[in-house]
């Protein structure tokens, strides 16, 4: 302490008892040393070098505890619906495999050279509970390259992915492939852009394999183009559709839309839930004038504007879920949603199911 001016030295001796002096010196010197270390650039951020073992242990320790604690209060919904893993697998097949790989699918070699490399997820279900996988898929993990779910309001999509990851360890390569893309042979398809749509939405070969996915067959091209634009802009939230829609090359959207518009409409399977088609028909054709619900067919009938979706022949499970989602202003901020929101808010869950059943039974979308 000889370097200090006299007055300061005296204060130091008067105020700080001898046994505390070393602590005070460390408290000042340690952060200073840490800053100087960072400033000097001696620390090596190279992914090629890996971490010291103790650093790796510390990072994993922090991450494991953080995920467990943050996921502790999440309630897992029933995941036994076979439609969930189909949707989850289709998304996983294109969106997650570049980093994680899958049965029979190598991860992208470049991405595997990141630090840390993304783990093969087949061991995941032993390590993590479903609610923890949900939390990771939804929120991503800092410093690892694991991104958060794009559409934070779409928990339903995240759970579909979780349902798939839950089933993943039991899948060999052929069964995984069948779950993700059905009977499709992507190498045999000339138009790869359309192939991207087909694994979820079906095509000339058939309807969507998961009932959580809308039927696009015979829908108007103008509406499909608009929907793709809304997904790509993020105004219509979907962590599954937004990456696909924003990845389609400009000009290809109209072609895709015309492709689906030209497909022969097919009727979906009969829904397996309680409903009353007569009530649904009444609502669809007459509405509820005393509760400010106009007839659905005023805007969604066969002669409606091309930019309005057709509802006849739509997949009932998708239909009901979509109509319920309109109630939440966060899920969809499109101009169409502004019109649908007050209507969806007035319909009860039962009425929505009745409508879903009516439209599923009332023939084919489009004309």
């Amino acid at each position, binding site marked *: 302490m000889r370097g200090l001016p006299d007055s300061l030295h005296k204060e130091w001796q008067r105020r700080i008892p001898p046994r505390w002096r070393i602590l005070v010196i460390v408290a000042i010197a340690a952060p200073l040393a840490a800053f100087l270390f960072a400033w000097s650039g001696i620390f090596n951020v190279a992914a090629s070098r890996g971490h010291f073992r103790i650093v790796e242990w510390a990072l994993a320790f922090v991450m494991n505890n953080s995920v467990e604690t943050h996921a502790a209060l999440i309630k897992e919904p029933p995941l036994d619906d076979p439609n969930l893993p189909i949707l989850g697998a289709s998304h996983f097949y294109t969106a997650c495999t570049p980093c994680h790989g899958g049965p029979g699918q190598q991860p992208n070699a470049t991405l595997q050279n990141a630090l840390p490399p993304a783990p093969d997820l087949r061991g995941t279900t032993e390590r993590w509970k479903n609610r923890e996988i949900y939390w990771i898929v939804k929120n991503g993990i800092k410093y690892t390259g694991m991104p958060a779910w794009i559409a934070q309001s779409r928990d339903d999509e995240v759970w579909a992915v979780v349902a798939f990851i839950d089933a993943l360890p039991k899948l060999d390569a052929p069964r995984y492939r069948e779950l993700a893309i059905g009977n499709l042979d992507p190498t045999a398809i000339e138009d790869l852009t359309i192939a991207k749509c087909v694994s979820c939405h079906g095509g000339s070969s058939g309807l969507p394999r998961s009932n959580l996915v809308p039927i696009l067959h015979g829908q108007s091209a103008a509406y499909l183009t608009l929907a793709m634009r809304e997904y790509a802009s993020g105004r219509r939230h979907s962590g599954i559709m937004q990456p696909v829609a924003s990845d389609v090359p400009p000009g290809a959207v109209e072609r895709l839309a015309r492709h689906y518009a030209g497909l022969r409409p097919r009727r979906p399977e009969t829904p397996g839930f309680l409903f009353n088609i007569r009530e649904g028909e009444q609502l669809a054709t007459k*509405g509820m*004038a005393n509760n*400010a*619900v*106009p*007839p659905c067919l*005023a*805007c*969604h009938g066969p*002669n*409606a*504007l091309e*930019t*309005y979706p057709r509802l006849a022949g739509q997949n009932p499970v998708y239909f009901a879920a979509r109509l319920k989602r309109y109630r939440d202003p966060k899920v969809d901020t499109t*101009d*169409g949603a*502004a*019109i649908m*929101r*007050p209507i969806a808010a007035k319909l009860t869950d039962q009425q929505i199911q009745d409508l879903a059943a009516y439209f599923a039974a009332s023939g084919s979308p489009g004309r």
Partner: protein
Amino acid sequence: MMRGLAIVLLMPAVASAQEQHSALAAHGEAASQIAALTWVLFALAAIVFALVAAATWIALTGPPRLRAMLASRQTIVIAGFVFPVVVLTVLLFTGLRMTAALSSDVANPLKISVRGEQWWWRVGYALPQGGRFESANEIRIPVGRAVRFELTTADVIHSFWIPSLAGKMDMIPGRVTSLRLSAERPGIYRGICAEYCGGPHAWMALSVIAVPQAEFDDWLSKVAQPPSLSQAQRAGGELFMRAGCGGCHSISGTQANGSIGPALTKLGTRRMLAAGALPMSEHNIARFITHGPEIKPGNKMPPFKILSPAELNSLSAYLMAQR
């Protein structure tokens, strides 16, 4: 002199009479009686005020003889008991007689139904040739004829008030109330909802247009006639149906039969749009279709920003052509 003083004091209110929206600018039997009663009350109140002021002055600084008189039992009984009882009783019976006369039945009134809805007025006429004509936010009546409004509400309590023509009458859920009035001379009389009914209550206005009986009969006989439309306007009409407007709105003579929102028959002839929110014009119709919630916050019609500019032009041209 008292009346002159009152007019000076109430100048701002009287000045607004030019807009035909003042209880003091009476243009109907009911409003005249109410205005007369208002003046009588005002004059009486002025006299009482002068007397009280004089009594107070005497009590404080008057000669002892007068102060003794003021404090006598006789003065207190007459000025403090007999005078108020007589005056208030006379006023009470005058008021009761007036209200009874105004709500009594008259022979052959013109019946018009008005239903208050959040936040507009549904207006219905019986047509002479049978059937009904539904309109909104604008009421045409013949001068000199007694009109009987049958008032109901679709949701909350509203109050139907056309200050220059009559007193106000509440529209109460589950009940039918009625109001009789007549306009003494042709003119446009503004009305408002006089009971706070939520959200854009302040934008729940209406116009009453009083015209000579012959003109009124002519108008009513023609409301069912469809407008003659140009080719472009007919395309707008097709768009009206395809865009789903007919799910909530009706236009008589077309397939549009929605009953949720205001009827748009003869829309182009109305003075105002959206219950007084905007002056009627093609431009404002287009604005209201896309930006309704910004123009009339809380209004129930959702914004149709989904329409292209060309579609919007076609639609507003068609609506403005409803004449």
